C-alpha cells in the first residue's frame, strides 16, 4: 500500500500544480492518472498547441507547460500511479481514506483531490438494446485487449475510424470470419489501412458492409447474432461470436459518480470557499468542478489548487497552526 498525505486523482496541469501548493505546506502527494503519462489533455490531445492565457507566459506550448510544472514540483517528490483508473474510495475509522485502482493499487491518504478534468475517456457505446447483457466476456467488447480471444471466432466489427480499420486487418489473419459494418461508403482513416480493408474484401477474406447501421443483437447467455440495416433499409443478420463496436472514446465521470458526491451535469459541485465537495476530506479542482461563475481555464484550476490546499492542511496536520508564507520571502523548501 502506498501511503501519502494527499491523493490527487488526475495528473493534468491542475493536479500537477496542486502538488506545488501542497508542498509549500509540507504535504506529500501521490497522483493517479488513467493515462500512461502525466499532463492530461495537454500531453494526450494537444501537446504542440500554444496556450496564450497562462500568466507570465505570452505563449507556451502545452507539453512545455507540463514539463515546466514537473520541474516546479520536483522539490516535493510527488509519486505517481499512471495508466490506472481510480475505482473505489473507502473511508477508514480515523476518517482517512484508502483509494483503490482498477489494477489493484491501493493508496492510503488523509485527503482526496479530484482534478480529473473531463473525466476518463471511455468507449462510446452504440444505442442498441441488450448490449450490457453480453458485455464482460459474453460477446460484446469495446476494445481489443487480448487478440487471442478472437482466434478462430466469428467477429463483427463496427465503426469507420482508424481502430476499426486496424483491427479488421489484424483480426482477418487470426479469426474465422471478420465482418466490418460501417455507416459510410468511404473511410477517412489512414488511406493505407482503408485500401487494405477494401482489398481484403475484394479477395473475399473479410465481409465489408457499407452504408449499414447496427440495429440489434441476439443470443442466449452468449452472443449469437448481429442484426443491421443495409443500404436499402432491409434488416440483415450475421452470425457472430463477438461484436466489437469501435466508436471512439467519450469523456465520462466513471466511478467518481459513485462516491456520494454532489454532481451536476457530470461535474462536481464545490463550495468556493475552499473547493471542498459535500464529502469532508474530498476536494475537486479544475475542469471537473462546477460553481456559479466557473470558468474552465487552467489558470482558474491553479488558483483553486492554492486555496484548496490551505483548507486541506487541517486534515493532514490537525494539531498544527497554518501560517501563510510567500515563496519570495521563504523560498521553496525541498523535502
Amino acid at each position: 500500500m502506498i501511503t501519502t498525505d494527499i491523493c490527487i486523482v488526475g495528473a493534468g496541469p491542475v493536479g500537477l500544480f496542486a502538488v506545488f501548493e501542497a508542498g509549500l505546506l509540507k504535504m506529500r502527494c501521490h497522483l493517479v492518472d488513467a493515462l500512461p503519462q502525466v499532463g492530461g489533455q495537454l500531453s494526450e490531445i494537444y501537446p504542440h498547441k500554444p496556450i496564450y492565457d497562462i500568466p507570465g507566459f505570452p505563449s507556451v506550448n502545452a507539453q512545455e507547460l507540463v514539463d515546466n510544472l514537473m520541474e516546479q514540483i520536483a522539490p516535493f517528490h510527488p509519486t505517481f500511479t499512471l495508466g490506472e483508473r481510480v475505482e473505489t474510495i473507502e473511508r477508514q475509522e480515523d476518517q482517512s481514506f484508502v483509494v483503490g485502482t482498477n489494477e489493484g493499487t491501493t493508496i492510503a491518504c488523509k485527503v482526496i483531490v479530484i482534478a480529473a478534468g473531463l473525466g476518463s475517456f471511455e468507449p462510446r457505446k452504440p444505442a442498441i438494446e441488450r448490449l450490457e447483457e453480453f458485455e464482460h466476456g459474453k460477446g460484446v467488447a469495446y476494445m481489443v485487449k487480448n487478440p487471442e480471444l478472437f482466434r478462430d471466432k466469428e467477429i463483427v466489427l463496427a465503426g469507420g475510424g482508424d481502430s476499426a480499420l486496424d483491427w479488421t486487418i489484424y483480426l482477418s489473419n487470426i479469426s474465422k470470419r471478420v465482418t466490418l459494418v460501417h455507416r459510410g461508403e468511404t473511410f477517412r482513416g489512414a488511406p493505407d489501412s482503408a485500401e487494405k480493408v477494401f482489398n481484403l474484401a475484394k479477395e473475399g477474406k473479410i465481409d465489408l458492409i457499407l452504408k449499414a447501421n447496427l440495429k440489434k443483437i441476439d443470443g442466449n447467455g452468449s452472443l449469437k447474432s448481429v442484426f443491421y440495416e443495409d443500404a436499402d433499409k432491409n434488416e440483415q443478420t450475421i452470425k457472430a461470436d463477438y461484436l466489437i463496436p469501435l466508436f471512439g472514446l467519450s469523456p465520462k465521470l466513471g466511478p467518481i459518480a459513485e462516491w456520494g458526491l454532489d454532481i451536476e451535469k457530470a461535474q462536481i459541485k464545490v463550495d468556493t470557499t475552499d473547493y471542498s465537495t459535500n464529502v469532508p476530506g474530498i476536494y475537486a479542482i479544475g475542469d471537473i468542478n462546477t460553481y456559479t461563475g466557473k470558468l474552465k481555464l487552467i489558470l482558474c484550476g491553479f488558483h483553486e489548487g492554492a486555496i484548496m490546499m490551505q483548507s486541506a492542511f487541517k486534515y493532514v496536520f490537525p494539531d498544527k497552526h497554518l501560517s501563510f508564507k510567500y515563496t519570495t520571502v521563504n523560498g521553496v523548501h525541498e523535502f
Partner: protein
Amino acid sequence: MSMVKFTVEDRDGSKQELEAPTDMGLSLMETLKAFEYNIMATCGGMALCATCHVKFSRGQEQLPDKNDAEWDMLDTLPDADESSRLACQLRVDENLEGAEFKICGDLE
C-alpha cells in the same frame, strides 16, 4: 448589432426560432447554452465529447466545411449521419440564416 435567425428542434420535438447575434464570436454550442438548451458541452468546445451533436434538416449546404477534428469525431459517432455537425465547431454567423437543426447530443 447584426442578427441571424434559425430554428432549433429540442430532443422532445419542440421547435423554436432563435435570433442570435453574429458579432459576439460565439459558437453555436455556446449560443444554445445561452438560450438554456440542455447541452453538456463536457469538453468546452474542443470537438472531444460530441455532446453538442446536432442534425440539420435545412440549410446545411450553407455551412462551412468540417475541420479535421470535427470530421474525426463525427466519423466515430454511432448515431451520426450526413446531416450531423458539432455545434461547438460552428460559428454563429450569416451562414446559419434560415437553417433548422435538431439537438442530438448525449445527456450523460
